[in-house]
């Protein structure tokens, strides 16, 4: 065994900084909180979707070979940060992750059946992904499933494409998210098997990891917004003659929320870079980013509500809106325990490394 070292550089390039600035201004102008509220209960805004399409956001993270602009997962994560920050009611992340998977299939010569690639590329047909299909057969709740006409999933060890001609009805949920049941046995759903075997399992694993990373990035955006809202309130609001941010009971919670945001952000960037550049290295990082962002967004938005006192639980407070979005955006993939189950691959790898180390080294045991 020899020592290996890795770089720890989280800095964005100038181009990536410019992309973030462009996205921040686009979503703050086109998706203010009033747009988010008006889009409920479905959680989808046609006009904003049109803006997203016109601004070319759907092709940034698709490869040139299938008609994209050649960007990758990191650009998608940067979009996720800004989408989450605005709680923007568009299925961009699910759509692009699904299109990246379909693009890989196209690149390896797989026919997509009746699916119209150009229509997906333009965002006329919204595509989504069924993360739960990794573990469960039959009907399942699909993120963005109430606006998508095509859903990529994994059934019976094969990658399948489910399509329907009409929208599936939304399954009402506490965050106003376009969740819907998709049932392969429903006559309205056509199921096409695209790829089976080991190659399919690997491609699905990569797709599922990309979805976890993209989704985690949107949660980082929610953490950023809810943290800013809570800090602004705490330095403004007075109680007992002082600003409530002067109480350590409040300020320490605000610091913890900030720690949650920054660690989740760094883990998402790191997972994105490594998944893109070295997909074989530590594949559990995607689940780690997703698990951390999920537990962080659930507890931190709850703290953000609490800092507001009674105002926090009113529906008119912006902070309560982010609290609602937090659960429906984070738990649609099956929850933290599923992520922890996936992190199990790291246990097995480390156990192997330890066994090899013990073969070559003595250790005092008392």
């Amino acid at each position, binding site marked *: *065994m*020899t*020592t*290996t*070292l*890795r*770089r*720890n*550089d*989280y*800095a964005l*390039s100038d181009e*990536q900084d410019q992309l973030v600035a462009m996205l921040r201004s686009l979503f703050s102008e086109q998706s203010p909180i009033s747009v988010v509220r008006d889009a409920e209960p479905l959680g989808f805004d046609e006009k904003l979707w049109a803006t997203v399409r016109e601004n070319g956001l759907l092709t940034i993270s698709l490869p040139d070979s299938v008609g994209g602009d050649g960007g990758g997962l990191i650009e998608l994560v940067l979009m996720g940060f800004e989408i989450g920050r605005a709680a923007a009611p568009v299925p961009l992340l699910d759509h692009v992750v699904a299109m990246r998977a379909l693009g890989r299939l196209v690149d390896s010569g797989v026919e997509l059946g009746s699916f119209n690639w150009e229509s997906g590329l333009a965002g006329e047909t919204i595509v989504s992904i069924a993360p739960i299909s990794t573990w469960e057969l039959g009907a399942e709740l699909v993120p963005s499933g109430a606006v998508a006409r095509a859903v990529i999933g994994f059934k019976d060890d094969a990658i399948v494409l489910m399509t329907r001609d009409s929208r599936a009805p939304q399954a009402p949920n506490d965050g106003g998210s376009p969740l819907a049941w998709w049932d392969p046995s429903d006559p309205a759903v056509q199921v096409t098997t695209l790829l089976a075997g080991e190659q399919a399992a690997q491609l699905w694993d990569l797709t599922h990891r990309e979805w976890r990373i993209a989704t985690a990035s949107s949660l980082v955006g929610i953490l950023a917004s809810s943290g800013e809202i809570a*800090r602004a309130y*705490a*330095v403004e609001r007075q109680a007992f003659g002082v*600003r409530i*941010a*002067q*109480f*350590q009971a409040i*300020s*320490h919670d*605000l*610091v*913890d929320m*900030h*720690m949650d945001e*920054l*660690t989740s952000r*760094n*883990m998402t960037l*790191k997972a994105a*870079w*490594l998944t893109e*550049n*070295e997909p074989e290295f530590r594949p559990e*990082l995607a689940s*780690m980013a997703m*698990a*951390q962002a999920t537990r962080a967004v659930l507890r931190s938005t709850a703290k953000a509500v609490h800092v507001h006192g009674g105002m926090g639980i009113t529906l008119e407070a912006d902070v309560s809106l982010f609290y609602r979005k937090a659960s429906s955006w984070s738990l649609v993939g099956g929850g933290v*325990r599923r992520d*922890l*189950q996936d*992190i*199990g691959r*790291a*246990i*097995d790898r*480390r*156990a192997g490394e*330890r066994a090899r*180390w*013990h073969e070559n*080294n*003595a*250790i*005092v*045991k*008392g």
Partner: protein
Amino acid sequence: MDFSQVELTAEQQAFEKEIRDLLSTSWTPNYAHIALDHDRSPDSVRLAMAKRGWVHPELSEGEGGAGLGEIEQEIITALFEEFYIANNANNSLLIPTLEQHGSAWLKENILPGIRTGELTTCLGYSEPDNGSDIAAAKTRAVQDGDVWVINGQKMWTTWGNESDYVFLLARTGPIEEKHRTLTMFLVPMDAPGVEATPVWILGGGRTNVTFYSDVTISDNYRIGPVNEGWSVMSTPLATEHGAGVVTEGVVPINGSMGAGFSRTFEKLIDGAIDWAASRKGADGRSRLEDPLVRLALAEAMLDLEVCWNAEGELGKPMAAEALAANADRLADMAAPEGILDFGVDGSIAAGIIASERQHAPGSAIYGGTTEIYRNNLARRLGLPRPY
């Protein structure tokens, strides 16, 4: 952004092999040595390292180092971790202070040994009546011609019983003027009137109360101007807190204490994995396949990854609290064996979990409590000072 593996040069590979050979011949790994952030290297290892300029390898050869870069330093750190050797010589905090503020005499006579690591130091900040509130120090230094006479008492002088010098904060004016009447000294621990009394702490470690009774030292031992001790002291404190540690290289982003605690945490997980791999359940299968064990281990591994991603000053409170929470988690996972002492038959990786569960609470206290860190972080977020 870049998380790629560093391709080591032929020289770096040779360096890695040389130090690996040195460590594997002069030291046998020991589960008991997991407080990598805190414990001092064994003298045999420290002196062997000092001879080669590897205690502070970043210094030039002329200065007692080896003129090595970030990569070589990280190789040393990684190998010390692999071989369960604590890597705390404490001097790295003091060197910049002595270089900047030390008297000509100190720089000529003491600094060289501190740089090589042949001389060791400890910190004399806290007192019985003040901990995090350092500027309330009462230990007094009074000038008498060319010498200073020191009287007082310091707490938590870890390594005070086996260090050559203490970096001492003393009061040199009216106490009402708080941080404006403090002065720093480097006091020889063998000076008459210095006494270190042991205080035994959770986890079996030793720290000390140190007493200073009419300790008389030359003005040569003063560090920096009289009554400027506050700014002199902040030089190493900033290093210890990991403030401003921004890197684009291989150094972890979570600051020196955050990284140290994270390495200890890593050893805890390794010990838990070693234990699970060595045990079988009633069904005859390895406990590594037990879903309850896997859940606990996965949660611990997740927390560890969070620690590595907590930048700068976030690193310490994050890692200290994760260490304590996960020592509890893993003791529970391996209950009841998880509470057996070090070296006891049937204990977890020779007691690594029980031992760390005892040690962990201290990591959230020494070097500044996690509350002090949160106050600092709150100010950086633009929040007002506490009420």
